[in-house]
C-alpha cells in the first residue's frame, strides 16, 4: 500500500486536524467575540468531512482498498456510517451551543474547537484497526471531552462533572491499556486482524483476561452497567449542549469501536465475550430502567435512558452476526435522532428569564402552554420507550429480530419484557406534561435554530421515519458487510 493511497484514505481526518489548528489560530487572535463565527466554521468543517466520507459508505468500501498505513486505519463503509452519525451529532451540539452559553457569558471560542477535536478523535476511533490507533483516537476524544464537561468554569456542578469524568475516564483508560497489553502479550500483535488470526485456534486464560479488561474499558466509554456510575453525574453537571454531545457522538464512536474489537479482533472467540455482553446488556436495560424512576432532574433521567438504550444495542452485539451489527447501526442512527430531539427539547425549557428548567416537576402541565414543544418531547419519550408507531420502535425491532435470528430467544424475551419497566418512567414524563395542572415554569421563548433542529428530529422519529427504513437498512447492511468482510 503506497503512501498516496493511505493519505487519501485519511484525508477527512487530515482535513479536520488542519482546519482545527487553523481555527485555533483564528480563535487565538480573534478572541471570544468571534465565537459564533468560529462555531459556524466548525460546522462547515464537519459538514465537508461528512461529504468526504459519504462516498465510502455509499460505495460499500471494504477490504484492502480501505486499509491505510499497513492496516492500522480503515476507511471502510462501517467507519463511514459511524462517522456520518458522529459529525451530525457534533454539528447539532455546535448549533445549539451559542444560545445556551451566551446567556451566562460563557460562549468562548474554544468550545467549537474542542468539539471539532473530539469529533476527530472519534473519527479515528471508529476507523481504528489496531489497538494503538484505537487508543490514540480514544484519548484524543476523551481529553477534549473532559474539558468540555467542565466548560462552565464558574459552575460548581460543571467543574465536578469534569473532574469526575476525568478521574473515572483515566481509570477506564488504564483498564483498557492493561487489557491491551495482555492481549498484545498473549497474541504477539496489536493489529485486529493479527489478533483474530492468533485467537483462531483457541485462547488461554491470559488472553481471556485481556479480552475482559479491554471490554471493561470500553464498557466504561459506552456507559454500560456495571461501569455506568459516572453517567448521571456527568450528564447532569455538564452544560446541556455538552450533555447532548456526550449522549450521542461518543456513544456512537465507542459502540462501533466495541463492535469492531469484539467482532473482528476477538471474533473467533465469540463465546468468550458473548456472556459478558449479554450480562452487560440485560443489566444495562434493567438498571437504566429502574434507576430512572426516582430521578427529579430531566438530564439525569436522560442519562439513565441512554444507559437503558445501550443495553438494547448490546443485544445486537450479542447476536454476533452481520444482521446484529446492521441492527445496532440502525438503532444507533435512530438513537442519535431521539437523543438530539430530547436534549434540544430540554434546552428549550427555559423560564421567563431564560434560565434553564431541568426539574421534572416544573414541567407539569407544559402541554397547556407549549403545545408543540410538549408534543415533541412526548414523542421523544414514547419513541425512547419503543412504542410504535414512533420510530424508536424500529431500533428495538431490528435488534430483537437479529437476536431471534441468531437463536438468542430467551435473551430477546427477557430484554423486551424488561423494556416494559423502562416504559414506566417514559410515560411518567408524558403524564407530567399532559395530565398534571400547569406549573407555568418553563415559559421562556427559544430561538429558531433550536426549533428547526427539534422539528427535524421530531420528523425523523415520527411514523414518517419508517419511510427511511429501506435506505437506512441498506446503508447499515453495507456497513455491516464491510465489518464482517475483514473477519
Amino acid at each position, binding site marked *: 500500500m503506497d503512501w498516496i493511497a493511505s493519505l487519501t484514505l485519511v484525508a477527512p481526518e487530515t482535513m479536520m486536524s488542519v482546519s482545527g489548528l487553523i481555527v485555533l489560530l483564528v480563535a487565538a487572535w480573534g478572541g471570544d467575540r468571534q465565537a459564533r463565527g468560529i462555531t459556524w466554521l466548525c460546522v462547515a468543517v464537519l459538514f465537508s468531512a461528512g461529504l468526504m466520507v459519504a462516498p465510502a459508505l455509499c460505495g460499500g468500501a471494504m477490504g484492502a482498498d480501505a486499509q491505510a498505513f499497513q492496516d492500522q486505519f480503515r476507511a471502510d463503509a462501517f467507519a463511514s456510517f459511524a462517522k456520518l452519525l458522529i459529525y451530525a451529532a457534533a454539528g447539532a451540539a455546535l448549533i445549539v451551543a451559542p444560545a445556551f452559553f451566551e446567556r451566562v457569558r460563557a460562549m468562548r471560542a474554544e468550545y467549537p474547537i474542542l468539539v471539532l477535536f473530539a469529533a476527530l478523535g472519534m473519527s479515528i476511533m471508529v476507523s481504528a484497526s489496531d489497538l494503538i490507533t484505537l487508543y490514540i483516537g480514544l484519548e484524543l476524544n476523551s481529553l477534549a471531552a473532559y474539558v468540555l464537561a467542565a466548560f462552565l468554569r464558574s459552575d460548581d456542578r460543571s467543574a465536578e462533572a469534569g473532574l469526575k469524568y476525568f478521574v473515572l475516564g483515566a481509570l477506564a483508560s488504564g483498564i483498557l491499556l492493561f487489557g491491551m497489553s495482555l492481549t498484545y502479550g498473549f497474541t504477539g500483535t496489536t493489529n485486529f486482524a493479527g489478533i483474530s488470526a492468533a485467537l483462531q485456534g483457541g485462547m488461554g486464560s491470559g488472553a481471556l483476561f485481556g479480552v475482559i479488561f479491554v471490554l471493561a474499558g470500553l464498557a466504561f466509554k459506552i456507559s454500560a452497567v456495571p461501569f455506568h456510575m459516572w453517567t448521571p453525574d456527568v450528564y447532569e453537571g455538564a452544560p446541556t449542549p455538552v450533555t447532548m454531545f456526550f449522549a450521542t457522538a461518543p456513544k456512537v464512536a465507542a459502540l462501533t469501536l466495541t463492535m469492531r474489537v469484539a467482532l473482528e479482533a476477538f471474533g473467533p472467540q465469540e463465546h468468550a465475550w458473548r456472556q459478558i455482553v449479554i450480562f452487560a446488556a440485560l443489566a444495562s436495560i434493567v438498571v437504566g430502567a429502574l434507576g430512572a424512576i426516582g430521578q427529579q432532574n430531566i438530564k439525569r433521567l436522560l442519562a439513565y435512558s441512554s444507559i437503558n438504550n445501550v443495553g438494547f444495542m448490546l443485544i445486537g452485539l450479542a447476536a454476533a452476526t452481520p444482521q446484529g451489527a446492521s441492527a445496532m447501526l440502525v438503532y444507533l442512527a435512530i438513537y442519535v435522532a431521539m437523543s438530539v430531539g430530547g436534549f434540544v427539547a430540554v434546552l428549550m425549557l427555559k423560564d421567563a428569564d431564560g434560565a434553564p428548567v431541568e426539574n421534572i416537576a416544573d414541567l407539569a402541565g407544559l*402541554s*397547556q402552554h407549549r*403545545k408543540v414543544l410538549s408534543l415533541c418531547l412526548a414523542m421523544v419519550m*414514547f419513541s425512547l420507550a419503543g*412504542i*410504535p*408507531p414512533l420510530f424508536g*420502535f424500529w431500533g428495538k*425491532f*431490528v435488534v*430483537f*429480530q437479529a437476536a*431471534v*435470528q441468531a437463536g438468542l*430467544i430467551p435473551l*430477546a*424475551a427477557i430484554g*423486551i*419484557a424488561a*423494556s*416494559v419497566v423502562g*416504559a*414506566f418512567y417514559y*410515560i411518567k414524563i*408524558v*403524564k407530567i406534561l*399532559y*395530565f398534571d395542572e400547569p406549573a407555568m415554569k418553563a415559559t421562556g421563548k427559544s430561538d429558531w435554530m433550536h426549533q428547526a433542529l427539534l422539528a427535524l428530529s421530531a420528523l425523523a422519529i415520527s411514523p414518517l421515519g*419508517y*419511510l427511511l*427504513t*429501506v435506505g*437506512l*437498512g*441498506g446503508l447499515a447492511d453495507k456497513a455491516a458487510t464491510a465489518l464482517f468482510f475483514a473477519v
Partner: protein
Amino acid sequence: MENFPILSLMLGVPLIGAFICLFVEAPAARWTALIATLVEFVLGALLWANYDIGGPQWQFTEKLPLFAGFSWALGIDGIALMLIVLTVFLMPICIGASWNSIEKRVGEYMAAFLLMETLMIGVFAAQDLFLFYIMFEAGLIPMYLIIGVWGGADRIYASYKFFLYTLLGSVLMLIAMLWMVNESGTTDIPTLMAYDFAPEAQTWLWLAFFASFAVKMPMWPVHTWLPDAHVQAPTAGSVILAGVLLKMGGYGFIRFSLPMFPEASAQFAWLVFTLSMVAVVYTSLVALVQHDMKKLIAYSSVAHMAIVTVGLFAFNSQGLEGAMVVMLSHGLVSGALFLAVGVIYDRLHTREIERYGGLSINMPYYALFLMLFTMASVGLPGTSGFVGEFLSLAGIYKVSTLVTAISATGIILGAAYMLYLYRRVAFGDQKHADAAAMRDLDLREWLMMAPIAAAVLWMGIYPESFLAPMRADIAALDARLARARPEGDAHLKLGAPKPAASAEHDAAQEGAH
C-alpha cells in the same frame, strides 16, 4: 371500485382530521371530528355494500413495499369487515357523546379519538404481521392520553395500569412474531394462516400470543385493568374501549391463535375454558354487588368476553359464528349502556346507583332505551345478545356439557345483575329530588341512542345480514381447525334399527283396524 385504495383512504381520513383538530378551536374541532367520522361511516357502508359475499377470501387488497422488513399490506375478509363496520358505526356516536361533556382541550381530545379510529381500522385491515403489531400497539398512546387527560379522579393510576398491563402482554408477542417470520420467511398474514408450524413451537408461540390477547380481551385473571380504565375514562372512551378495543383480543384469537397454531389451540383449550368458566361466574357475581354503574358494566363485559372465548375454542362453526356475533353485539350493547350511563352522569355527575331511582317516571324515553339495552345484554330473544350467546353455547355443547352448563349460568347471572341494576335505576320511588328533576333525552342523545337500538334489533331479528359476509371465512377457519378438533364428550351412539318384522307387524295391525 376494484382498484381504488379504499382502506388506505379510510386510514387517511381520520388522520388528516386529527391533524386539523390539533390546530383549531373547540367548536371547529368538534365539527371536524364529526364530519371525519361521518365520512368514515359512509366509506364503511360503501365497503360493506361492495364486499362481494362468496367472492375471494381477501378483498380490497393493497400492497406497497414501502418499508424494510414489512410492507403496507391491507385487505379484509368478512370478519374484519364486520369489525370495521362496527368501528365506523360507533365513532360518530362517540364524538356525539363527547360533544358537551368535554370542555377542556377539545382539539387534542378529538385528535386522539380520530387517531384511535385510524389505528383500530388499521388493526383489522392489516395483512402484514408487523403492520398489525404496529397498529395494535400504537393504540396504547391515544387511549393512555384519553384516560389520563380527560378521565375521572383516579385517572392517573388507571392510565398507568392500562398502558403497562397491555404493553407487557404485547411485547412477548413481538418476539413470537419475529420467530415466526424467521421460520416461515414471510410477513404476509394470509400465508402465515396456512403455514404449519411444528407443534412443539406452536405451544410457545400460542402462549406468547395468548399473553397479549388475553390481556386485551380481557380474560380473568388479567382483567383487572378494565374496570379501572372504564370507570376513569370519559364516556366516549369507555364506549370505544368496550365497543372496539376489547374486540381486538377476540380478533387476535380468530386471526392468529386459531388458524396459525391449531394444535396448540386444541392443547390449551382446557386453559381457555377454565379461565372463561371462572370469569363467567366470578365476574358476574362481582358485577352483582357493584355500586358504580360503569364498574358493573365493565365486569359484565368480562363475563361476555368469556362467552366469546368459549365459543372461539369450541372448534366448530357454530361456536366461531356465535363468538363473532357476541363480539359485534357486545360492541353495540355495552357501548350503548356506557352511553346511557353517560347521559345521566352528564346530568347528575355521579355514577352511584343509589343516587338514582324511579327514572322511568321523569325520563320515560331514557328508561325505554335503557330497558332495550338491558334486555339485549341479558340475551333476550329478538335482540342481538340472544343470537350470539345461543350460537356460542350451541357450539360449545358439542364439545363439553360441563363447560356449557357453567357458561350458561352467565346468562342467568347476567339477567340477575342487569335487571337488578335496571330496577334500582329506573323503577321504584324517586328517592332524590335532583334525580327526579332530570330532563329526558334531548335530540343529540336521541340521535346517539336510536341508531344503536335499531342495530341491536336488526342483529337480533335478522342476523343473516351480519353472518353472511363471515360465513365463508368461518367455514375456512373451521376446515383449517378440523385436524386438531377435540373429541366431544357426547358419545352419540346410533341405536340398533328396529327389526323389519315389527314394522310389518305394525302395518299389519294398522291394516286390521
